[in-house]
Protein backbone atom coordinates (compact mmCIF):
# COMPACT_ATOMS: atom_id res chain seq x y z
CA UNK A 1 0.00 0.00 0.00
CA UNK A 2 1.37 3.42 -0.87
CA UNK A 3 0.69 6.53 1.18
CA UNK A 4 -1.96 7.93 -1.15
CA UNK A 5 -3.92 4.67 -0.77
CA UNK A 6 -3.52 4.79 3.02
CA UNK A 7 -4.61 8.43 3.17
CA UNK A 8 -7.64 7.58 1.04
CA UNK A 9 -8.49 4.70 3.35
CA UNK A 10 -8.49 7.00 6.38
CA UNK A 11 -10.43 9.86 4.81
CA UNK A 12 -13.07 7.38 3.58
CA UNK A 13 -13.69 6.38 7.20
CA UNK A 14 -14.02 9.87 8.66
CA UNK A 15 -17.05 11.27 10.35
CA UNK A 16 -18.17 14.53 8.76
CA UNK A 17 -17.59 16.33 12.10
CA UNK A 18 -13.95 15.25 12.48
CA UNK A 19 -11.28 17.94 12.50
CA UNK A 20 -8.09 17.02 10.62
CA UNK A 21 -4.70 18.60 11.22
CA UNK A 22 -2.19 17.72 8.50
CA UNK A 23 1.58 17.61 8.46
CA UNK A 24 3.26 19.69 5.79
CA UNK A 25 4.18 18.47 2.32
CA UNK A 26 2.77 15.45 0.55
CA UNK A 27 0.38 14.41 3.34
CA UNK A 28 -1.47 17.73 3.16
CA UNK A 29 -1.59 17.59 -0.64
CA UNK A 30 -2.73 13.96 -0.82
CA UNK A 31 -5.50 14.49 1.71
CA UNK A 32 -6.55 17.67 -0.09
CA UNK A 33 -6.64 15.71 -3.36
CA UNK A 34 -8.59 12.75 -1.88
CA UNK A 35 -11.16 14.64 0.16
CA UNK A 36 -10.82 18.38 0.75
CA UNK A 37 -12.99 19.64 3.61
CA UNK A 38 -13.46 22.92 5.47
CA UNK A 39 -12.58 21.03 8.65
CA UNK A 40 -9.11 20.26 7.28
CA UNK A 41 -6.16 22.34 8.41
CA UNK A 42 -3.17 22.09 6.07
CA UNK A 43 0.23 22.98 7.48
CA UNK A 44 2.50 24.42 4.78
CA UNK A 45 5.67 24.72 6.87
CA UNK A 46 6.41 24.46 10.62
CA UNK A 47 7.45 20.83 10.15
CA UNK A 48 6.86 18.67 13.22
CA UNK A 49 4.18 20.89 14.73
CA UNK A 50 0.89 19.37 13.54
CA UNK A 51 0.42 17.61 16.93
CA UNK A 52 1.04 20.89 18.82
CA UNK A 53 -1.68 22.63 16.82
CA UNK A 54 -4.03 19.70 17.32
CA UNK A 55 -3.32 19.67 21.06
CA UNK A 56 -4.01 23.41 21.29
CA UNK A 57 -7.43 22.74 19.76
CA UNK A 58 -8.07 19.64 21.85
CA UNK A 59 -7.40 21.47 25.13
CA UNK A 60 -10.35 23.75 24.48
CA UNK A 61 -12.61 21.30 22.65
CA UNK A 62 -12.18 18.11 24.66
CA UNK A 63 -15.27 16.39 23.26
CA UNK A 64 -14.31 17.01 19.64
CA UNK A 65 -12.67 14.21 17.67
CA UNK A 66 -9.43 15.49 16.20
CA UNK A 67 -7.18 13.50 13.87
CA UNK A 68 -3.55 14.31 13.19
CA UNK A 69 -2.35 13.12 9.78
CA UNK A 70 1.38 13.04 10.32
CA UNK A 71 4.54 11.56 8.78
CA UNK A 72 7.50 9.71 10.25
CA UNK A 73 9.90 12.57 9.46
CA UNK A 74 7.52 15.03 11.08
CA UNK A 75 7.07 12.95 14.24
CA UNK A 76 10.81 12.45 14.65
CA UNK A 77 11.33 16.20 14.35
CA UNK A 78 8.84 16.97 17.10
CA UNK A 79 9.17 14.12 19.60
CA UNK A 80 8.38 16.50 22.48
CA UNK A 81 4.82 16.54 21.16
CA UNK A 82 4.40 12.87 22.03
CA UNK A 83 5.28 13.65 25.65
CA UNK A 84 2.82 16.55 25.70
CA UNK A 85 -0.06 14.54 24.24
CA UNK A 86 0.73 11.53 26.42
CA UNK A 87 0.75 13.75 29.51
CA UNK A 88 -2.51 15.55 28.67
CA UNK A 89 -4.25 12.41 27.27
CA UNK A 90 -6.96 14.07 25.17
CA UNK A 91 -9.63 11.36 24.90
CA UNK A 92 -10.72 12.08 21.34
CA UNK A 93 -7.40 12.62 19.65
CA UNK A 94 -6.02 10.07 17.19
CA UNK A 95 -2.48 10.52 15.92
CA UNK A 96 -2.05 8.81 12.56
CA UNK A 97 1.47 8.52 11.15
CA UNK A 98 2.03 7.53 7.53
CA UNK A 99 5.43 5.90 7.78
CA UNK A 100 7.24 5.53 4.47
CA UNK A 101 10.66 5.62 6.15
CA UNK A 102 11.89 8.53 4.06
CA UNK A 103 11.75 12.29 3.57
CA UNK A 104 9.65 11.86 0.45
CA UNK A 105 9.37 15.43 -0.80
CA UNK A 106 13.12 16.06 -0.63
CA UNK A 107 14.24 13.04 -2.64
CA UNK A 108 13.66 9.98 -0.46
CA UNK A 109 16.46 10.30 2.09
CA UNK A 110 15.94 7.81 4.94
CA UNK A 111 14.49 8.92 8.29
CA UNK A 112 15.31 7.16 11.56
CA UNK A 113 12.03 5.24 11.53
CA UNK A 114 13.85 2.22 10.11
CA UNK A 115 15.89 1.96 13.31
CA UNK A 116 13.49 3.35 15.93
CA UNK A 117 10.03 2.11 16.85
CA UNK A 118 8.07 5.35 16.90
CA UNK A 119 4.89 3.68 18.19
CA UNK A 120 6.81 2.42 21.22
CA UNK A 121 7.89 5.97 22.02
CA UNK A 122 4.22 7.00 21.88
CA UNK A 123 3.34 4.11 24.16
CA UNK A 124 6.05 5.13 26.61
CA UNK A 125 4.65 8.66 26.59
CA UNK A 126 1.20 7.47 27.62
CA UNK A 127 -0.86 7.13 24.45
CA UNK A 128 -3.52 4.47 25.03
CA UNK A 129 -3.68 2.20 21.95
CA UNK A 130 -0.48 2.22 19.90
CA UNK A 131 -0.28 0.14 16.74
CA UNK A 132 2.04 -0.30 13.80
CA UNK A 133 0.00 -1.75 10.94
CA UNK A 134 -0.15 -2.05 7.17
CA UNK A 135 -2.59 -3.04 4.44
CA UNK A 136 -5.81 -4.65 5.52
CA UNK A 137 -5.09 -4.11 9.24
CA UNK A 138 -5.50 -0.33 8.96
CA UNK A 139 -9.29 -0.10 8.99
CA UNK A 140 -9.95 -2.42 11.96
CA UNK A 141 -7.21 -0.68 13.98
CA UNK A 142 -8.69 2.72 13.15
CA UNK A 143 -12.20 1.52 14.06
CA UNK A 144 -10.98 0.24 17.41
CA UNK A 145 -9.40 3.62 18.14
CA UNK A 146 -12.58 5.48 17.24
CA UNK A 147 -14.55 3.36 19.69
CA UNK A 148 -12.11 3.64 22.63
CA UNK A 149 -11.07 6.71 24.67
CA UNK A 150 -7.68 7.99 23.47
CA UNK A 151 -5.23 9.39 22.74
CA UNK A 152 -4.22 6.75 20.21
CA UNK A 153 -1.27 6.31 17.89
CA UNK A 154 -1.73 4.60 14.52
CA UNK A 155 1.50 4.10 12.62
CA UNK A 156 0.68 2.96 9.09
CA UNK A 157 3.56 1.42 7.18
CA UNK A 158 3.42 2.51 3.54
CA UNK A 159 5.70 2.13 0.55
CA UNK A 160 7.70 5.05 -0.78
CA UNK A 161 5.93 4.77 -4.15
CA UNK A 162 4.31 7.96 -5.29
CA UNK A 163 2.10 7.05 -8.26
CA UNK A 164 1.70 10.71 -9.18
CA UNK A 165 2.42 14.02 -7.52
CA UNK A 166 -0.80 15.50 -6.10
CA UNK A 167 -1.45 19.15 -6.95
CA UNK A 168 -0.38 21.95 -4.63
CA UNK A 169 -3.02 23.28 -2.30
CA UNK A 170 -4.46 26.28 -4.13
CA UNK A 171 -4.99 28.43 -1.03
CA UNK A 172 -2.79 31.02 0.59
CA UNK A 173 -1.93 30.32 4.23
CA UNK A 174 -4.37 32.89 5.62
CA UNK A 175 -7.16 31.36 3.49
CA UNK A 176 -6.40 27.90 4.91
CA UNK A 177 -6.77 29.35 8.41
CA UNK A 178 -9.96 31.30 7.66
CA UNK A 179 -11.58 28.34 5.92
CA UNK A 180 -10.71 26.01 8.79
CA UNK A 181 -11.99 28.44 11.44
CA UNK A 182 -15.20 28.84 9.44
CA UNK A 183 -15.45 25.05 9.13
CA UNK A 184 -15.09 24.35 12.83
CA UNK A 185 -17.21 27.28 14.02
CA UNK A 186 -18.45 26.15 17.40
Amino acid at each position, binding site marked *: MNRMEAVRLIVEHLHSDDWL*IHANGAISRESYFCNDRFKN*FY*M*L*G*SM*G*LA*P*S*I*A*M*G*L*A*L*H*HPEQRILILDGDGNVLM*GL*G*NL*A*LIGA*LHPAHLIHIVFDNGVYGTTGGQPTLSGQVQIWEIAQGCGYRICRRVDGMAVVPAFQEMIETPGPHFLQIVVSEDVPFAPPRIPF*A*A*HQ*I*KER*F*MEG*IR*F
Partner: protein
Amino acid sequence: MNADALLLMLERNGFDFFTGVPCSYLKNLCRILQTRDSTFHQPAPREDIALGLAAGAYMGGKLPVVYMQNSGLGYSLEVLASLHLIYGIPVLILLTYRGLGEDAGWEEHQVMGRHTEDILRTFGIRYSELDDQFDEDHLRDIRKFLVREQNPYCLLVDKEAIT
Protein backbone atom coordinates in the same frame (compact mmCIF):
# COMPACT_ATOMS: atom_id res chain seq x y z
CA MET B 1 5.12 45.30 37.56
CA ASN B 2 3.69 42.87 40.05
CA ALA B 3 2.98 39.42 38.53
CA ASP B 4 -0.54 39.24 39.99
CA ALA B 5 -1.40 42.67 38.62
CA LEU B 6 0.01 41.78 35.20
CA LEU B 7 -1.96 38.55 35.00
CA LEU B 8 -5.18 40.26 36.09
CA MET B 9 -4.64 42.94 33.48
CA LEU B 10 -3.99 40.34 30.76
CA GLU B 11 -7.14 38.43 31.70
CA ARG B 12 -9.20 41.62 31.80
CA ASN B 13 -8.08 42.31 28.26
CA GLY B 14 -9.15 38.97 26.90
CA PHE B 15 -5.98 36.89 27.08
CA ASP B 16 -7.27 33.50 28.13
CA PHE B 17 -4.65 30.87 27.33
CA PHE B 18 -1.03 30.78 28.46
CA THR B 19 1.74 28.45 27.38
CA GLY B 20 5.50 28.61 27.20
CA VAL B 21 8.82 27.59 28.65
CA PRO B 22 9.91 29.20 31.93
CA CYS B 23 12.68 31.69 32.56
CA SER B 24 13.97 32.78 35.98
CA TYR B 25 12.79 36.31 35.07
CA LEU B 26 9.24 34.90 34.96
CA LYS B 27 9.27 32.80 38.09
CA ASN B 28 6.70 34.95 39.89
CA LEU B 29 4.35 34.87 36.94
CA CYS B 30 4.86 31.13 36.46
CA ARG B 31 4.16 30.50 40.15
CA ILE B 32 0.67 31.97 39.73
CA LEU B 33 0.06 30.33 36.37
CA GLN B 34 0.91 26.92 37.83
CA THR B 35 -2.15 27.13 40.08
CA ARG B 36 -4.44 27.25 37.05
CA ASP B 37 -5.76 24.31 35.03
CA SER B 38 -4.48 23.25 31.61
CA THR B 39 -7.27 25.01 29.72
CA PHE B 40 -5.80 28.28 31.01
CA HIS B 41 -2.13 27.43 31.35
CA GLN B 42 -0.25 24.54 29.80
CA PRO B 43 3.56 24.55 29.81
CA ALA B 44 5.28 23.17 26.69
CA PRO B 45 8.44 21.08 26.35
CA ARG B 46 9.97 23.54 23.89
CA GLU B 47 9.21 27.03 22.60
CA ASP B 48 8.24 25.96 19.09
CA ILE B 49 5.69 23.56 20.55
CA ALA B 50 4.33 26.37 22.75
CA LEU B 51 3.77 28.44 19.62
CA GLY B 52 2.04 25.50 17.94
CA LEU B 53 -0.23 25.06 20.98
CA ALA B 54 -1.00 28.77 20.87
CA ALA B 55 -1.89 28.55 17.16
CA GLY B 56 -4.32 25.69 17.86
CA ALA B 57 -5.75 27.53 20.86
CA TYR B 58 -6.29 30.65 18.74
CA MET B 59 -8.12 28.74 16.02
CA GLY B 60 -10.12 27.12 18.80
CA GLY B 61 -11.33 30.51 20.05
CA LYS B 62 -8.65 31.66 22.52
CA LEU B 63 -6.37 34.69 22.63
CA PRO B 64 -3.01 33.18 23.60
CA VAL B 65 0.08 34.37 25.45
CA VAL B 66 3.39 32.52 24.97
CA TYR B 67 6.20 33.17 27.43
CA MET B 68 9.82 32.26 26.79
CA GLN B 69 13.43 33.29 27.16
CA ASN B 70 15.05 34.94 24.14
CA SER B 71 17.11 31.75 23.80
CA GLY B 72 13.80 30.14 22.75
CA LEU B 73 13.40 32.71 20.02
CA GLY B 74 15.88 30.69 17.98
CA TYR B 75 13.73 27.56 18.15
CA SER B 76 10.70 29.70 17.38
CA LEU B 77 11.78 31.55 14.27
CA GLU B 78 10.87 28.93 11.69
CA VAL B 79 7.47 28.46 13.30
CA LEU B 80 6.84 32.20 13.33
CA ALA B 81 8.02 32.43 9.70
CA SER B 82 6.00 29.54 8.29
CA LEU B 83 2.98 29.48 10.61
CA HIS B 84 2.05 32.62 12.57
CA LEU B 85 3.35 35.27 10.19
CA ILE B 86 1.83 33.75 7.04
CA TYR B 87 -1.43 32.28 8.37
CA GLY B 88 -2.03 35.35 10.52
CA ILE B 89 -2.05 33.95 14.05
CA PRO B 90 -2.22 36.59 16.77
CA VAL B 91 -0.21 35.76 19.87
CA LEU B 92 1.36 37.88 22.58
CA ILE B 93 4.91 36.72 23.25
CA LEU B 94 6.43 37.60 26.63
CA LEU B 95 10.11 37.36 25.72
CA THR B 96 12.64 37.65 28.51
CA TYR B 97 15.68 39.65 27.55
CA ARG B 98 18.69 37.64 28.72
CA GLY B 99 22.20 38.81 27.93
CA LEU B 100 21.83 42.49 28.85
CA GLY B 101 24.11 44.41 31.21
CA GLU B 102 25.69 42.23 33.86
CA ASP B 103 23.72 39.25 32.52
CA ALA B 104 26.14 39.35 29.55
CA GLY B 105 28.52 37.56 31.91
CA TRP B 106 26.58 34.40 31.01
CA GLU B 107 28.32 33.51 27.80
CA GLU B 108 25.44 31.41 26.46
CA HIS B 109 23.20 34.51 26.43
CA GLN B 110 25.63 36.94 24.82
CA VAL B 111 24.91 36.37 21.14
CA MET B 112 21.13 36.18 21.40
CA GLY B 113 21.11 39.11 23.83
CA ARG B 114 23.01 41.24 21.34
CA HIS B 115 20.74 40.35 18.42
CA THR B 116 17.25 39.86 19.86
CA GLU B 117 15.88 43.16 18.60
CA ASP B 118 17.64 42.83 15.22
CA ILE B 119 15.98 39.47 14.76
CA LEU B 120 12.53 40.77 15.67
CA ARG B 121 12.95 43.71 13.29
CA THR B 122 14.24 41.48 10.50
CA PHE B 123 11.21 39.22 10.84
CA GLY B 124 8.87 42.20 10.99
CA ILE B 125 7.62 41.30 14.46
CA ARG B 126 6.34 44.35 16.37
CA TYR B 127 7.69 44.68 19.87
CA SER B 128 8.02 46.98 22.84
CA GLU B 129 9.39 46.78 26.33
CA LEU B 130 7.50 45.88 29.50
CA ASP B 131 8.99 48.80 31.43
CA ASP B 132 7.90 50.97 34.37
CA GLN B 133 5.64 52.99 32.08
CA PHE B 134 3.71 49.96 30.90
CA ASP B 135 0.03 50.19 31.79
CA GLU B 136 -3.39 49.04 30.71
CA ASP B 137 -3.55 51.54 27.84
CA HIS B 138 -0.48 49.90 26.31
CA LEU B 139 -2.03 46.48 26.72
CA ARG B 140 -5.27 47.63 25.11
CA ASP B 141 -3.26 48.92 22.15
CA ILE B 142 -1.44 45.60 21.88
CA ARG B 143 -4.73 43.73 21.95
CA LYS B 144 -6.12 45.98 19.24
CA PHE B 145 -3.00 45.35 17.18
CA LEU B 146 -3.29 41.57 17.59
CA VAL B 147 -6.95 41.50 16.60
CA ARG B 148 -6.61 43.95 13.72
CA GLU B 149 -3.31 42.78 12.23
CA GLN B 150 -3.67 39.07 13.08
CA ASN B 151 0.01 38.92 13.82
CA PRO B 152 2.29 38.15 16.75
CA TYR B 153 3.41 40.90 19.13
CA CYS B 154 6.37 40.70 21.41
CA LEU B 155 6.82 42.26 24.86
CA LEU B 156 10.45 42.27 26.00
CA VAL B 157 10.82 41.50 29.69
CA ASP B 158 13.95 42.61 31.52
CA LYS B 159 15.23 41.05 34.74
CA GLU B 160 13.28 43.05 37.31
CA ALA B 161 10.29 43.88 35.10
CA ILE B 162 7.90 41.35 36.67
CA THR B 163 8.16 41.07 40.44
